[in-house]
């Protein structure tokens, strides 16, 4: 096990017969992920890209031994899908779906937590460990096996940064996209200990954005508990207060959530802060030193 996923991860795709579900089932398989089952109520018995489809997660788990779920179910039904997965014994669920009301997510989060299950997302690209497994939608082309861990609240920006790390001749241990919603199942503070404990990670890249206090919380955690070097970037320095900047969670509300506050906290915690995303690969290379750069 690296961070949360490895070659023992067996994925059930909920909403596999939808466009997104099908496309990313193909991509996950191409990455090397063991996609063992799909679920779409009413379509049990069929197949998608060679993957057997079941009517319920319970059926899928009993018949295939699936131990992780990737959820593409539309927002109005996503809560039900997640609770069904948890009740079927799934302990890791990546929720790709966007626009889930946070009131639903509060129920999903506390329900999962009380049963020992972890949610990544919602509105997230998921998780990938090159050479091992990927659950979610991070594009396969950006990965290269290596020793840099990446934790991010963004999607495309993460791909760009991960790709930059690859082009710099470095690679990634695990990339984790937390999602851009106000309530996420796994936060920076939840993820950092996993990377700190992971023997395959030498350095952590943290990609934040405006809104909430997740980065400030992360800075406090880093100061106390993280010995590995951290390189951080926060998007949205030019964002005005009160505007929701594309992500539901990216909003400066009542003076809280500014990039400046986050950058200061991270800097004070000893993280190396990049002003722009394209500076990250060089900062990472410098921190890892020449020996690790090949």
């Amino acid at each position, binding site marked *: 096990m690296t961070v949360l996923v490895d070659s023992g991860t067996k994925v059930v795709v909920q909403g596999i017969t939808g466009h997104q579900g099908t*496309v990313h089932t193909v*991509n996950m398989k191409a990455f090397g992920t063991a996609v063992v089952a799909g679920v779409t109520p009413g379509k049990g018995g069929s197949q998608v890209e060679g993957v057997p489809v079941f009517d319920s997660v319970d059926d899928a788990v009993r018949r295939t031994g699936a131990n992780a779920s990737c959820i593409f179910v539309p*927002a*109005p039904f996503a809560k039900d899908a997640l609770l069904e997965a948890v009740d079927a014994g799934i302990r890791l669920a990546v929720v790709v779906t966007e*626009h*889930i*009301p*946070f*009131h639903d997510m*509060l*129920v999903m*989060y*506390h329900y999962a937590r009380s049963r020992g299950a972890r949610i990544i997302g919602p509105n997230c690209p998921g998780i990938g460990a090159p050479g091992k497994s990927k659950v979610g*939608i*991070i*594009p396969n*082309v*950006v990965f290269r096996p290596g020793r840099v861990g990446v934790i*991010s*609240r*963004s*999607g*495309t*920006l*993460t*791909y*760009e940064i991960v*790709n930059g790390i690859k082009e710099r001749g470095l690679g990634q241990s695990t990339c984790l996209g937390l999602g*851009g919603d*106000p*309530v996420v199942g796994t*936060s920076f503070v939840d993820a950092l200990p996993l990377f700190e404990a992971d023997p395959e990670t030498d350095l952590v890249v943290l*990609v934040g*954005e*405006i809104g*909430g*206090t*997740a980065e400030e*919380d992360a800075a406090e955690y880093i100061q106390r508990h993280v010995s590995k070097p951290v390189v951080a970037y926060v*998007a*949205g*320095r*030019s*964002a*005005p207060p009160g*505007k*929701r*900047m*594309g*992500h*539901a*969670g*990216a909003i400066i509300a*009542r*003076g809280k959530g500014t990039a400046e506050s986050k950058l200061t906290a991270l800097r004070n915690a000893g993280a190396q802060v990049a*002003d*722009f*995303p*394209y500076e990250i690969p060089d900062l990472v290379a410098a921190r890892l030193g020449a020996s690790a750069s090949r």
Partner: protein
Amino acid sequence: MVKLAEWRGKEIFRSYGIPVPRGAVVRSPEDARKAAESGSVPLPCVVKAQVLAGGRGKGGAVRFADSPAAAAEAAQAILALEFKGEKVREVLLEEKLAIAKELYVSISLDRSRRVPLLMASAQGGVEIETVDDSALLRVEIDPFAGLLAYEKRRVAAALGVSGPVRASLDRLLDQLWIVFQKEDAELVEINPLAIVGDGVIALDAKVIIEDDAAFRHPEFNEVRDDRTPLEEIAREQEIAFVQLDGDIGVIANGAGLTMATLDVLTQYGGRPGVFLDLGGTDDPKKVTQAFLLMAKARPSAVFLNIFGGVTRCDTVALGLVDALKEVPEAERFPLVARIRGNNEARGIEILRAAGVGARTDLKECAQSVVAAAAGRRVAPGARA
């Protein structure tokens, strides 16, 4: 997010049994006079502008009246106001009450703790940000257990209420928690919550409904008080579109990448005007819609920043070239494209062949779009 005007918030409160003053919302001085004359609003009364910005009391947007004629006069004065950039279209007339004390309560979301958070203070009627932390009680509500009796006892103690007032407060808190959940609110705030006689009453109401829960609340579809007209069109077409106050348009895929693009532009002296997030789409129709919408915002120049991950850059480029043809001649704008990722070389080739300056370096592109925008600003005739 859907911010509700005070009177809409109070209508919701009333429907859940939360006490609010007797009153009426009107749109003309004549209707204000009638409301006061008919007794539907007892005199003396308060006349309040129905705007979303705070600080109305100090800003002349709240007046008092003791006769129907005075109510009409106050309404007329307030309806003529433009309050913090917002034209006043509605005023709320309400009975003036004998207030013993002003308190504060709200329920919002604590993102870090991932729980609904009830806040209460004995210092009501002022901006809550100015209240010292020691005077602010925070109670985390368990989403499954709900608001518990002992938690309400803590609130009552912090607010210094007892006896029949406490009983009234207990009922109000229960109902406020139900409103927060049932209406899918991001925020329900009563400031001030007044002690009047033996009970509490909501003198103000701030209710914000979550956008993502709109599918459960068709009744709010018509409430679009705080969006610009273009933001409204974008919402209908399901495009993430935000209007800022600069003049350079930005189109990117993904919210994080879009924000990073704005930051780089700002760094090089550009002023981002409109921000448009294509998200994960490579649907040519959506790309075309996005470009047409951008054209309507009349940007000085547009910066397109695409990272091709799952989608291929050449596919996106082909969509863009088609989209550009649809933009009317008069609405064309200088376009700088920065294309990275999957099949980037082919994507750049396609764009260049169509006359679009396309490159891979973010800094160079940012500088060139800032220059293009500046060039157009010195020649405003070019935009007419």
